[in-house]
């Protein structure tokens, strides 16, 4: 069938693909495979643990210890630490994928390139814009999510129906970033050049007599509209955590202050905020890390068009679509550099807590 036929006939007239004949055979095979994998895994764990227990003498404890921690250390070493180092090394090289002049077979060769990839990333204007956008995400998402989350947590604290009000704002946490991207990109921000506006926000605009606005094409504000999607998801997270912290503030403090004539805003500023400061920091850093890694939103809504690209998405496209792995690796390392301060801060506070124990 040609593409014109598809266009003329519309979506419903052509016979749809449907489930193929052995659909359920394949699916039950997959489900069985998953179930068997889980059972085999659990049996191995139990057998190895009790196997270590059978050993007599002074080695028993040591071997049990190895059994307990070796799987995690092995998986993290081979699957995370070594790959991270390898990616870093790759970022200092150039990978060329060229056909061998004699045999014609494509071969991959790696050449040390020093800082070339980084030099390119930091001089190429579109990549530079990608890095700048990521920086904007990293700043705005945590600030806005925490701000909205804190405000909402305070407003509804001890209100009637607090639980229901909380789950309304918390609900987007259960939705995938792809789902949220569809909700906002395809429905809230939808824009029609002609005819009636089908998008919620543009329909609202025409209701009050404003011209329709192409949210996703308006550089540089479009990055902000994408950021709103992640804020919409992360606010619930911030709200739940901060709300628990607010409830941990001793009621006596607020009562004493209000007897002294402090109004709500003064109590919020001089009692609530200082009491929950450490929680606010945790929420801010957690959301910052999240905001850096997220690529789903940009990939789903704009695919990086109209200067909305961010490092996480660019890295994916370079490495897995365009085959420019070493440049992708350099971007991954740049992403890591953004979080290094947070790693250091977190490790320090962890050690502080351990010392005081």
């Amino acid at each position, binding site marked *: 069938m040609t593409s014109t036929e*598809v266009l003329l006939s519309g979506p419903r007239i*052509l*016979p*749809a693909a*449907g489930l*193929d004949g052995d*659909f359920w055979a*394949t699916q039950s095979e997959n*489900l069985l495979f998953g179930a068997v*994998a*889980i059972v085999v895994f659990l049996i191995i764990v139990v057998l190895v643990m009790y196997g*270590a227990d059978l050993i007599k003498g002074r080695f028993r404890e040591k071997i049990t210890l190895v059994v*307990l*921690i070796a799987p*995690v250390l092995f*998986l993290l070493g081979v*699957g*995370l630490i070594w790959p991270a180092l*390898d*990616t870093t090394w790759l970022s200092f090289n150039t990978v060329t994928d060229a056909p061998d002049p004699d045999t014609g077979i494509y071969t991959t060769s790696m050449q040390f390139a020093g800082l070339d990839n980084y030099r390119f990333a930091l001089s190429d204007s579109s990549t530079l814009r990608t890095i700048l956008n990521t920086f904007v995400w990293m700043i705005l998402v945590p600030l806005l999510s925490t701000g909205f989350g804190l*405000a*909402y947590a305070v*407003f*509804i604290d001890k209100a009637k129906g607090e639980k229901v009000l909380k789950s309304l704002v*918390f609900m987007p946490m*259960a*939705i*995938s*970033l*792809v*789902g949220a991207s*569809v*909700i906002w*990109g*395809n*429905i*809230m921000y939808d824009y*029609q050049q002609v005819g009636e506006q*089908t998008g*919620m926000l543009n*329909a609202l605009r025409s209701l009050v007599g404003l011209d329709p606005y192409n949210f996703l094409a308006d550089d540089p504000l479009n990055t902000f509209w994408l950021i709103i999607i992640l804020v*919409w998801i992360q606010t619930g997270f911030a709200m739940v*955590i901060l709300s628990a912290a607010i409830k*941990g503030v001793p009621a006596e403090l607020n009562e004493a202050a209000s007897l002294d004539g402090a109004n709500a805003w003064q109590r919020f500023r001089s009692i609530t905020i200082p009491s929950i400061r450490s*929680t606010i920091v*945790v929420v801010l850093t957690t959301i910052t*890390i999240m905001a850096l*890694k997220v690529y789903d939103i940009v990939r*789903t809504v704009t695919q990086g068009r109209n200067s909305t690209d961010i490092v996480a998405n660019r890295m*994916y496209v370079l490495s897995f679509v365009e085959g420019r792995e070493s440049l992708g*690796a350099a971007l*991954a*390392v740049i*992403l890591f550099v953004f*979080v290094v301060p*947070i*790693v250091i801060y*977190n*490790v320090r*506070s962890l050690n502080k807590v351990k010392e005081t124990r």
Partner: protein
Amino acid sequence: MSTSMQPPVQQPLKEGKDRAGKATSRSKKAKENLTSPWATAAAIVIAMVWTIPTIALFMNALIPGDRYRTDPWWSVMADGELTFENFNYVLFDSFGDSASSPPLLANVMNSIVVTVPSVVFPVVLALMAAYAFAWIPFRGSNFLFVLIFALQVVPLQLALIPLLRILGPENLGLAGEFGGVWIAHTIFALPLCVFLLHNFVSHIPREVLEAARVDGASHTQVFFRIIIPLSLPAIASIAIFQFLWVWNDLLVSAVFGSNSTYPLTYPISNLAGDYGQYAYLVPPAAFISMIIPLIVFFSLQRYFVRGLLAGSTKG
């Protein structure tokens, strides 16, 4: 991510009870002062902005294909033409940029097959390590734990290319298979799972474990008879957290999966940016992808919140 050393599960519960007990007349007065009409209005606006988009998605899912690009859902509803047919079509007939695209039911099944083992594997392995780090003193324990803690923050992007090579055809041959996706998800989940479970396991009262050890119980016996039963609430919280994370994931599935393993997020993400004649299939598909997480979320919200709090509140 966090520095909490508090028993994660008891904490929120206890606070809730304390609060309820303290609702004296004096604190009621303080409460009245806190809730100004402006704050209430702002709360209502926030609650609406956070709810209406999801409702709008559902309404859009009901618009028939021939009216999707031209009419908003309220016009279609006024004409009485909203239909559930789209859900049927997307699940059993076709989802994609042509009528010959396969339907979404296969991806629903893939999501299940990808998710369940990707929850069991990391939680079990992490609980084992958490017990060792919390209760078995050994040289380097502290260093290794801090290292795992720090790994929580490392962006997955840093590991993708080499890990794909390890799982790829030249080595393990698991890339594009469910096995490869499970392994990748397990690895990426371990740092947070170890950390959260360690928080919990390390707060099991010392006397309980020592009594068992004095009676001659080995580490294996302590693990199966004491640690697992006592940690069940924490395991539940972390399992729910991991379930939602894996079910909603796109990156790991896109990199380590293939057409035979892609979960719901993958085809939806692909079609969402395509504003052609098949755009009307995106809202029903997105809504389908949300049903299971929303059920899990609303029925087990309490555990989910506990899991989050365990990872984020400071003691």
